[in-house]
């Protein structure tokens, strides 16, 4: 009941972090759904999604290419499209409503923003999943940028050590923020890391580092 939930960040950053999840339901509408799921992904890609992914078989890197990923979609796939721009997300929502493909769509993001996007697309929120945060030994968790980057992968596949290595390489100007973001994305099997937001987090860290060194 989680996946794209529990993403940590400030409102300004989360405003550019909109993820669509699309899937059929077992024994209700899953039979013959693969071409519909593929059409959803192609529509999102063409309408400005920065990344698309497949939870069932893995992202473009796991499957070797984006084309392989699209060709391998199965009837019970759960797929995702990541947007970093509200206007593009609204256009995609309008197109999906118009297309009436018939499978279930979940929009992850700031609820107020999602409500407004839905309203502009002629849709309404039906069911919501709210995060009540982290409980227990939270003293063992990193904070700040590391937690923001880690929680963008719902399955926790982006290791803290990999994030810390990426931060060091960006600060040392060995990697660009964009390259660091793409490297984290590779580990996120479903492909739901928002590479634009991740790069912005890396850029902010670089600026902090430069201020400290001034």
């Amino acid at each position, binding site marked *: *009941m*989680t*996946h*794209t*939930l*529990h993403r940590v960040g400030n*409102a300004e950053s*989360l405003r550019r972090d909109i993820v669509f999840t699309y*899937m*059929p*339901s*077992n024994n*209700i*509408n899953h039979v013959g759904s693969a071409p519909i799921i593929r059409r959803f992904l192609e529509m999102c890609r063409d309408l400005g999604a920065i990344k698309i992914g497949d*939870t*069932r*078989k893995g992202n473009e890197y*796991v499957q070797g290419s984006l084309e392989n990923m699209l060709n391998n979609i199965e009837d*019970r796939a*759960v797929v995702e499209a990541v947007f970093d721009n509200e206007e593009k997300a609204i256009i995609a929502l309008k197109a999906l409503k118009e297309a*009436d493909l*018939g*499978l*279930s*769509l*979940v*929009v*992850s993001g700031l*609820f107020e923003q*999602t409500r407004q996007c*839905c309203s502009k697309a002629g*849709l*309404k*929120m*039906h*069911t*919501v*999943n*709210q995060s*009540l*945060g*982290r*409980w*227990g*030994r939270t003293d*063992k*968790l*990193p904070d700040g940028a590391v*937690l923001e980057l*880690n*929680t963008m992968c719902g*399955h*926790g*596949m982006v*290791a803290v*050590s*990999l994030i810390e*290595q990426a931060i060091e390489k960006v600060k040392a100007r060995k990697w660009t923020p964009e390259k660091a973001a793409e490297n984290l994305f*590779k*580990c996120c099997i479903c492909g739901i890391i928002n590479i634009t937001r991740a790069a912005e987090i890396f850029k902010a860290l670089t600026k902090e580092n430069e201020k400290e060194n001034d």
Partner: protein
Amino acid sequence: MKINSDLCTGCGKCNVFCPVGAIFKDQGKNISVIDLEECVECGSCLRQAKCSVDAIYQQELAWPRSVRSIMSDPLTITKESGIAGRGTEEMKTNDVTGRFRYGYVGVGIEMGRPILGTYFSDVEKVAMAVASYGVEFETRNPLTSLMSDQSTGKFQDELLGEKVLSTIIEFTIPVEKMLGLLEVLKDVSEKIDTVFSLCFVSRLGDDEVIPISHILDEAGVWYAPNGKANVGLGRPLFIEKGELV
């Protein structure tokens, strides 16, 4: 997961890919080694490190160790849910299933998330605490099938020493029981050696108001401004008895 010590060159490139920090450098032998106690069998090192000498390999996983892979590798498809990952369809398809109805709250307690992972001994502590509060666990969730007694939240003893990246305790309760459940969770959260991420699912009415938010506000309970929203595009739509269409 294991690393063949005869093949490993000690380059250390695989170490950073482990989500639970189970890969370390044996300085004496100058090779990388996986701590099998900590390893959750998620497959990340095998997939991502792309070892140049193919030293990383998946050993045969016998029960109960195989549960680590089932819960930790996102590409594992479990028979209970039929989908990849450790969860279920949950609210993602609620527009067609009607699984979460008006007046009820769906609860997901994701043990070990983020980062820390969890032993089943801690999962059992939380499951038994909420079971004593009178919840019924979601049978389509693969975790529920691992319980030796679903009425008490007790797990099979051989599982208690197994560690996974995360696993989700899932059930539904009436809204009236929500604040009491939070008290139970606050109490048990102080008795575990890991974290859990908590979520609540609600069915919205035509006004799109989240029905539990004001209750949480009045009780001073924090919740995130961001989350997931099913936007009702699935067909055929599930219609609750008495619901206006």
